[in-house]
């Protein structure tokens, strides 16, 4: 009998310790606020992300309190009402229920739900039903199997994978409104520090907005499984000062640089299937299936963020896309080394 008791106690001690251990892990691993360039949902840099983070903290506090109360009750009943050796063979009082207690633990949760719902509905409305100011930056984002197309209808710009938007001064906001479309399967636009995610669904245009309040590069990626290379459909949003943004817009609006030194590469590009998928403004190449290459060199990455835009990476990518991104829809054109070098030279003139 005594032996049974001590083993029960040991077990209880272990249970308690482990519960504490779990709680400690959860506490110790609270996300640390990253300075910048992170993807932490609790480091918001724009109004929608900020209101979501505030709501999230409120919900975390409420659910944390519920957890504390219920966990305490559970732990107390496990410890207090553990079977003891002296009770062996005797049954405790048989209690069948209590209407008052049931009422109490029905009504209190109902009140909590009302509070949580009202707090949430307010934020839903504030984010989703925000009016679009007349001078907002408009961007059409189109999801493709495995890259992003960005079109600025008012500015006449087409680019890919790296979105440039101006920083928004709270006293004179210049928010960016995105229209979200898809060319093939479902995708989801998620830059955690700028806004919650919204899906890009064919035949189902969506809208989202952001008004970033600090400059920098913000990372994100496709969040809705869209096919083989869903993992390497990365996103970067460059939040520029108004001056930098204006300069970027001017550069993007200009036609492709005509560099006679790369005429051989251009010929390879235009005599192969490259131009069926890629566009270079001002040349016969006007394919829409792949990213627009008019200002390829203005981007810091290639292959939707899968590799840095360096000479070697570019060469490898054109030679064998599956070396960087297996499952990518860009085929290897099996170019000779000379043609390959020529095309890379041509690409490097597209500033």
């Amino acid at each position, binding site marked *: 009998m005594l032996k049974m008791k001590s083993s*029960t106690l040991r*077990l209880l001690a*272990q*249970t308690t310790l*482990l*519960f504490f251990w779990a709680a400690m*892990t959860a506490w110790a*691993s609270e*996300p640390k606020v*990253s300075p910048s360039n*992170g993807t932490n*949902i*609790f480091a918001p840099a724009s109004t929608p*992300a900020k*209101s979501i983070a505030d709501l999230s903290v409120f*919900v*975390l506090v409420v*659910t944390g309190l519920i*957890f504390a109360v*219920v966990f305490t*009750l*559970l732990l107390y*009943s*496990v410890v207090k*009402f553990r*079977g*003891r050796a002296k009770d062996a063979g005797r*049954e*405790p009082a*048989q*209690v069948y*229920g209590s209407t008052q207690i*049931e009422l109490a*633990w*029905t009504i209190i*949760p*109902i009140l909590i*739900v009302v509070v*949580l719902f009202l707090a*949430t*509905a307010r934020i*839903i409305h504030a984010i989703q039903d925000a009016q679009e100011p007349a001078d907002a930056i408009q961007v059409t984002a189109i999801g493709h199997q495995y890259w992003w197309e960005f079109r600025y209808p008012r500015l006449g710009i087409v680019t890919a994978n790296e979105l440039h938007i101006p920083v928004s001064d709270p006293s004179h906001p210049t928010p960016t409104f995105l229209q979200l479309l898809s060319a*093939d*399967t*479902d995708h989801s636009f*998620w830059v955690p520090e700028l806004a*919650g*995610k*919204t*899906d890009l669904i064919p*035949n*189902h245009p969506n809208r989202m907005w952001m008004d970033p309040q600090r400059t920098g590069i913000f*990372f994100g*990626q496709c*969040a809705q499984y869209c096919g*083989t290379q869903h*993992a*390497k459909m*990365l996103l970067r949003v460059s939040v520029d000062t108004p001056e930098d943004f204006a300069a970027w817009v001017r550069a993007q609006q200009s036609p492709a640089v005509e560099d006679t030194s790369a005429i051989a590469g251009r010929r390879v590009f235009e005599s192969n299937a490259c131009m069926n998928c890629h566009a270079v403004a001002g040349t016969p190449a006007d394919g829409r299936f792949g990213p627009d290459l008019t200002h390829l060199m203005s981007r810091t990455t290639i292959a939707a963020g899968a590799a840095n835009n360096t000479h070697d990476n570019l060469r490898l990518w054109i030679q064998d896309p599956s070396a960087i991104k*297996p499952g990518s829809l860009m085929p290897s054109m099996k170019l000779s080394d000379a043609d390959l070098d020529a095309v890379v030279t041509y690409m490097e003139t597209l500033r």
Partner: protein
Amino acid sequence: MSSNAITIPGTQIEARPWVDELHQWVTTVDHKRLGILYILSALLFLAIGGVEALIIRIQLMRPHNDFVSPEVFNRMFTMHGTTMIFFVAMPVLFGFANYLVPLMIGARDMAFPRLNAFSFWLSFLGALLLYFSFLGGSGLYGAGNAPDVGWWSYAPLGARAFSPGHSSDYWTLALLVSGFGSIGTAINIIATILCLRCPGMKINRMPLLVWMNLVMAGMVLIAITPLSAAQIMLLIDRYLGGHFFDTQAGGSAVLWMHFFWIFGHPEVYILIIPCFAFMSEIIPVFSRKPIFGYPVMVAATVCIAFVSMSVWAHHMFTIGMNSYANSFFTLTTMVVGIPTGIKIFNWIGTMWGGRIQFKTPMLFSIAFLFQFLIAGLTGIMMAASPFDWQLSLSYFVVAHFHYVIVGGILFALFGAFYYWYPKMTGRMLSERLGKWHFWLFFIGFHLTFDVMHIPGILGMPRRIYTYEPGRGWDTLNFIITIGAFIQALAILVFLANLVISYFRGARAGNDPWDAWTLEWSVSSPPPAYNFATVPTVSSRRPLWDLKHPEDPDSRYE
């Protein structure tokens, strides 16, 4: 025929050829044997789905890992999800329902024994079809193929343009065929409970396990049908030129989401309600008290069933519904937390004032309460739709639903295994191995799934086969993978316990836990006909009344 003239099958030792024995199992219509077949097939697929999970975890344990190709990784998470939901969780729960419901209501079998066998073999055929895709996905020559569309196969990824070949057709057929099996079983459970209760077992005297399985079966009828309809529509799209979900011809991707989730969310409750049922039997017995608030537990279960039919679009908060729809589904999702909370309180109320015995089934039950509480609270977080715009489709949501399915459903199931294994086999499972199993699994579970919330908060989306270093995800993913292997070790201990105890376990006797429901009044394992004479009951705890004639429950009900 008097009851003492009946000998128990199994104690008669006959040298029967194994083919004969196998034949009996294959052709059986006995609810107990079918129950065990369901459970064994689920254990087989648990092992397979578990290996798939380990492959996923090895691939993700460090950035830029190339353990498997992206194609293989995508097949693994598709097969893991589909297998675990349709060919592990549902069959194992149907198995327990099959085994226990007739015994608990004093019936000699299910209402339709042949339909019962048909349903099991349909479900099993479904599983075989799914796994045949590894061989026949692109015709027999295409080795190493399997569906890679994710377990919800969102349109238009499942359309022929994006999923050529036949691998996703095997996924469709597997769900369609096993869905018919599930519907058959659900009809059977409902008919059995409504028509075959023993004298005196009024509907408000049924054990809670029976009540909850009744509700579960009703939900299966409502939830599986839209899934089957959607699968048929998908086949029409793929082979008969239909355009239901073919976006390039004007079809609707969102329609598929609605069809899938109006199945998918009730499905979660179809899985968890039978686990509530296990808890509602195990916790009272090991607390030595009747369930606290029986009528409230029944009402809460029915309430959950109704409300859970109106929450499906909380899986779709990111698809751009308008603010009113988002608010509506936020409200319904939070409301479903109320009856669920009431259940947790009632289980704690049951333990309160009891004399809790920490046998392995009870350990798993207490861990269930703890983990299900957390899973419910992270569910509330995601019910707040703006919060969900960040958390949805991230590792946070993966951690959340594994908390429900592993921390809730699987822990409850392990409790059920330790509790009813003696009834099914006549042998006790080893408590020593049981404790090892429990603590290893508990530690592995928390190491994996507590930590898994954090990469989600740090912006890691689900279903990516690799990730860049330096995003703060590396160490976390490494810890998660270690936890997964500890869980796998625990499962091995469990399987070893099942096998070793079958041969060497202590004899269980009729009623090893001093319990109160009718299945413990018959021998272990029960005879083919269950009850020599059909019992008559006069309260919710017939065996309590027998053991305490001076203070029977029937006096208070």
